[in-house]
């Protein structure tokens, strides 16, 4: 890919007479970044691709043996790995649906004449800017069964959130919804404010119901931006690590990133973890591809 940069650009451009030519400047500006990313992102991935075909363990001095596709075969036939993927899928669905419902709902409320709208919006956006790890930590305090304010406020007594295997994943998802609904809200607001006012006026003149107006005018026009929010959050929820790792240690919250972390850095099955990393990587790249398509689509408007 780097060679693509080195196509010819007029070396006799106007500014080339003095100082560097545009071609030189362009290469000088772009190539270091590309090289940096190749060295620190692509090269490591090639390195781990190699290890994914071995039984290498970073904890032992034994040399790596080539095992072919064995790691991949075993991983794809491992019901436990599939259950990690199933947990991840459940988490993605609960948290993204929650974020879209809350985020879009709040955006609809905010998309009116509201005093101090700017200030309120900024305050609402605060959670998504915070560190996931630290958010996870203080939600532990909120979820505490004996002195947490969540149980106290909702009158739940000493309800167990995080140490209850059935509840823990939802607790993590609720925290994620709290953190990231503002993101969906932010993008939805941008979409909503771009809907031309005259469409609503025309609908009002035609005595269209608010139901009809919402589904025929608002939703279709906001949909592309909402899609960006949904795809991005899906991708991020799929990769989730920090929140679940800090909040609980239940087997029912072992999302794929946590499994990968444990396999690589606690069980030291380095070769196998590289193979699992590749399986995850391919899935992420597929979603990224869709995401970028939508980004470019919205950009063109």
């Amino acid at each position, binding site marked *: *890919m780097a060679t*693509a*940069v080195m*196509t010819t650009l007029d070396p006799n451009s*106007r*500014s080339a007479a*003095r*100082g*560097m030519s545009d071609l030189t*400047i*362009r290469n000088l500006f*772009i190539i270091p*970044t*590309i090289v*940096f*990313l190749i060295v*620190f992102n692509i090269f490591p*991935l090639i*390195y*781990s691709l190699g*290890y994914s075909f071995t039984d290498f363990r970073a904890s032992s001095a034994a040399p790596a043996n080539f095992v072919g596709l064995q790691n991949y075969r075993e991983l794809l036939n491992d019901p436990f790995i599939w259950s990690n993927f199933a947990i991840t899928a459940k988490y993605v669905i609960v948290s993204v649906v929650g974020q879209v419902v809350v985020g879009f709902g*709040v955006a609809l409320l905010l998309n*009116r004449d*509201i005093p101090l709208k700017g200030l*309120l919006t*900024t*305050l*609402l*956006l*605060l959670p998504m*800017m*915070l*560190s996931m*790890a*630290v958010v996870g*930590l203080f*939600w532990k*305090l909120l979820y505490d069964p004996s*002195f947490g*304010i969540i149980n*106290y406020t909702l009158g739940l007594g000493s309800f167990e959130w995080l140490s209850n295997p059935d509840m823990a994943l939802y607790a993590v998802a609720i925290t994620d919804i709290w953190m990231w609904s503002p993101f969906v809200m932010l*993008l939805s607001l941008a979409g909503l404010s771009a809907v031309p*006012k005259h469409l609503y006026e025309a609908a*009002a003149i035609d005595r269209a119901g608010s139901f009809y107006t919402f589904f025929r005018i608002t939703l279709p026009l906001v949909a592309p931006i909402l899609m*960006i929010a949904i795809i991005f959050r899906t*991708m991020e929820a799929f*990769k989730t*690590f920090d929140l679940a790792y800090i909040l609980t240690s239940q087997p029912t919250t072992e999302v794929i*990133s946590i499994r990968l972390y444990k396999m*690589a*850095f606690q069980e030291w099955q*380095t070769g196998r973890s590289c193979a699992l990393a590749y399986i*995850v990587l391919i899935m*992420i790249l597929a*979603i*990224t591809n869709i995401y*970028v398509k939508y*980004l*470019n689509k*919205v950009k063109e408007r």
Partner: protein
Amino acid sequence: MAAVTTSTERSLNKLAIVGVLIVTMIFLAPIYWIASTAFKPRNLATTIPPTVLFQPEISPFVKLFTKRSQLRTAPTPEQYAAAPWWERLVFDGGEKVVRSGRGEVQWSGYPNRFMNSLIVAITSTVLAVGMGTFTAYGFSRFKIKGEQDLLFFILSTRMLPPVVVAIPMFLMYRVVGLNDTHWGLIILYTAFNLSFSVWLMKGFMDEIPKEYEEAALVDGYTRMEAFFKIVLPEAATGIAATAVFCFITAWNEYAFALIMTNRRAQTAPPFIPSQVGSGLSDWTVIAAGTFLFLLPVAIFTFLLRNHLLRGMSFGAIRK
């Protein structure tokens, strides 16, 4: 528009205002709770019913920065009187500040982790924004074969899950001795933020009219001079916004820091949670550490408020 503003519309608006206020309160409650816990006396931090009104204290912050041990016997009145005010706060909590043989106060692990976070976040931000600005200008102004593919490639490096990248990086760092060093983390965060910085800065560069530089070139500037004297000042706001975003990302990052550092170069995100669960955790101290750590981000969010949309959509939505 006046015709549409009927009385039902007005009452709907009032309902929306009430709704927004309630939602805002719910969303801010967790942040308020952690902030208020940071100023509570220890015995009021975990009460039922929760303590809402209390006399704020700064003892949690004193405890946060110092190494402490349990007091076996109460301090004598002379000891108490001889101690500086902040040390008395620790005495009042039934603990004492650990001092070395020569009487020097022993620091806790926190200030060191906080400094590490600052060093790593600031250095990686400067590098990522610096390189990103040049690259964005290149993409914005010059014809590049396969431009879309290159931009996709750049963005996709940002989307990689941290743990996926961390496995080979850990192995490579072990060979070159970069594990648990500032530079190890700085390189990772620079790589992570670089793609973001290129995408965001490209949007800002695209908005600066090409005519500015062309006029400068006609006036006898070289392209480099035009870039530094005309384009960079015009892009200042964009550079600042991008830098704040990169800083926040690096400041908040957890997974790489957890894997790549353990002591010397450890940043605050893996350190703060590690304090919970070691014996009886003092939530006021944890809250104080959290509060100090979140404060810069809260301030930056406020400063960034007009650029949040743009940053969060990688520059795709500009408004």
